[in-house]
């Protein structure tokens, strides 16, 4: 089977987010860039399916040169090859623009399953997966926590998390899956894996290579425009609940919640 994983590089979740002057972007100095956590589940699932059915796992990233680090991490986990689309015209591209680039790459490849993380933990849009599926005209199953592939590798049964339950969704391949935490336990890259990854193919493509007009992407092509970024509202400082004993504190808290906060 040919399995593709769309991968994003994001600031580590430990990062304190600071807004840059001009309020349109964040301060990126000293940020530790990592593979998007949801993409780790996507890569792991792709590897497991390949190991069972044979075939290849190809990682596709879009962004500046630093994104090769995240792609190399996926290669070190065991993926076979990588493709990075890097082009100065991509700065300021929105979700739909990124999806167009990914779809253009994917249309040039053979594939049975396309994986994405359910969302990037940076911009939190969570729409690139369904955008790509639509542009490829293939079915999608999002927020998947369990995936079964039929023995003849023609169909999938995907367990999709919904509020208060799970939908078990069946689809024929090719299909696009977005990975949710719980899908699997991603492996760590081993030292031999890291060494091997250095020799695995990683192609870098430009928009021209893909036949994409620069006007379709970047800030100019974006359908969503950022007006400003703001920090979260400060919360008023709280109260320490008094009491000599745990029981007294609990009783005071209960009445504060009832009388003052009107929350219970």
């Amino acid at each position, binding site marked *: 089977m040919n399995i593709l994983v769309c991968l994003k590089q994001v600031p580590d*979740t430990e*990062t304190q*987010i600071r807004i840059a002057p001009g309020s349109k972007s*964040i301060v990126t100095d000293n940020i530790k860039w990592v593979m998007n*956590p*949801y993409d780790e589940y996507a890569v792991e699932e792709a590897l497991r399916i390949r190991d069972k059915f044979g075939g290849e796992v190809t990682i596709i990233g879009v962004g500046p040169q630093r994104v090769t680090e995240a792609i190399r991490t996926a290669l070190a986990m065991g993926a076979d090859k990588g493709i990075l689309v890097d082009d100065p015209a991509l700065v300021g591209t929105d*979700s*739909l623009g990124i999806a167009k680039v990914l779809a253009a790459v994917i249309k040039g490849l053979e594939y049975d399953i396309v994986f994405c993380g359910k969302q990037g*933990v*940076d*911009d*939190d*849009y*969570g*729409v*690139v997966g*369904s*955008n790509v599926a639509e542009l490829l005209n293939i*079915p*999608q199953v*999002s*927020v998947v926590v369990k995936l079964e592939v039929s023995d003849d590798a023609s169909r999938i049964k995907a367990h999709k998390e*919904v*509020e*208060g*339950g*799970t*939908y*078990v969704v*069946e*689809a*024929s391949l090719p299909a696009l899956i977005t990975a*949710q*935490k*719980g899908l699997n336990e991603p492996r760590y890259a081993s030292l031999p894996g890291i060494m091997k990854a250095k020799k695995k193919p990683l192609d870098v493509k430009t928009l021209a290579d893909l036949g994409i007009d620069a006007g379709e992407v970047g800030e100019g092509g*974006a*359908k*969503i*425009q*950022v*007006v*400003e*970024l703001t*920090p979260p509202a400060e*919360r008023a400082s*709280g*109260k*320490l*609940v008094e009491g000599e004993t*745990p*029981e007294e*504190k*609990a*009783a005071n*808290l*209960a009445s504060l*919640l009832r009388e003052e*906060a009107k*929350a*219970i």
Partner: protein
Amino acid sequence: MAQGIWIVAEQREGELRKISFELVSEARRLADTLGQPVTALLLGSNIKEKAAELGKYGADKVIVADDERLATYTTDAYASVVSQLVQAGEPAILLLGASVQGKDLSGRLAARLGVGVAQDCVDFKVENGNLVAKRPIYAGKAYATVTYKNSVPQIATARPNVFQMNEPDESKSAEVVDGQFSLDDSELKTKVAEVVQEAGGKVDLTEAERIVSGGRGMKGPEHFTVLEALADAIEATVGASRSAVDAGWRPHGDQVGQTGKVVSPNLYIACGISGAIQHLAGMGTSKVIVAINKDPDAPIFQKADYGVVGDLFEVVPALTEAIRKMT
């Protein structure tokens, strides 16, 4: 010219979900500033009788798409029907819930219609007839205010539990019409084979009015019964921090935070949670936050409206008891 605000109502098993009323209420407020009508799309099977409820919350018109293949949400069927109705009716703005369904559908629709979508918004306003949406990024460590370009309609999803519901007005009613659409079986590439309900009919964290969450301080999975008793007394849903989930004490679906669920309940009670930055991002928009922790220097106290320094295994059962006595 495109005009009017449309919302996609959400139903499960033929019952309207709360987000539907939140969407209609917010659409009503925005439409009033524009002087334009609110239209709700209602998709389902034998669903028409539910249309009147949407009118009471402020919808002027409800377009019903009734088909047995729309009984349970699938991306293919819903994207097909909603895009046909939208292309025929040309609304300026289309709002959906930032639910699992709404997030899935909005992305597919946006690509089909070639327009922008602002996901998981917590505030809307209209300027010069255009939607201005505010949405958390980095799970709430910052907020982005965004507008649209070349997008008809401008699509956005609204975070559940954030937008105020109008009081239903029994005297109001909506015009109910049958939507015109065609749906071919060949379009339906996915099928929901099974719907598994979580045991106990627990309210999902993203929709819960109250949440009681436990972290590393719970010391093990068996002690979550202490939180469950409190949750039971105040009709809350039990959540967990990432460390509790990664330790295998609670299922992944219970995790609150940057790589879990981002929640905004009326009341969030954090027990034995120190308050890692990823966790604080995920629950920071809760209306009232309570922290119960042994460590007075725990970062969670910076976010808390009410802090209790103490042993959760003493404080929480006493709190449960105190609340039970209050009723």
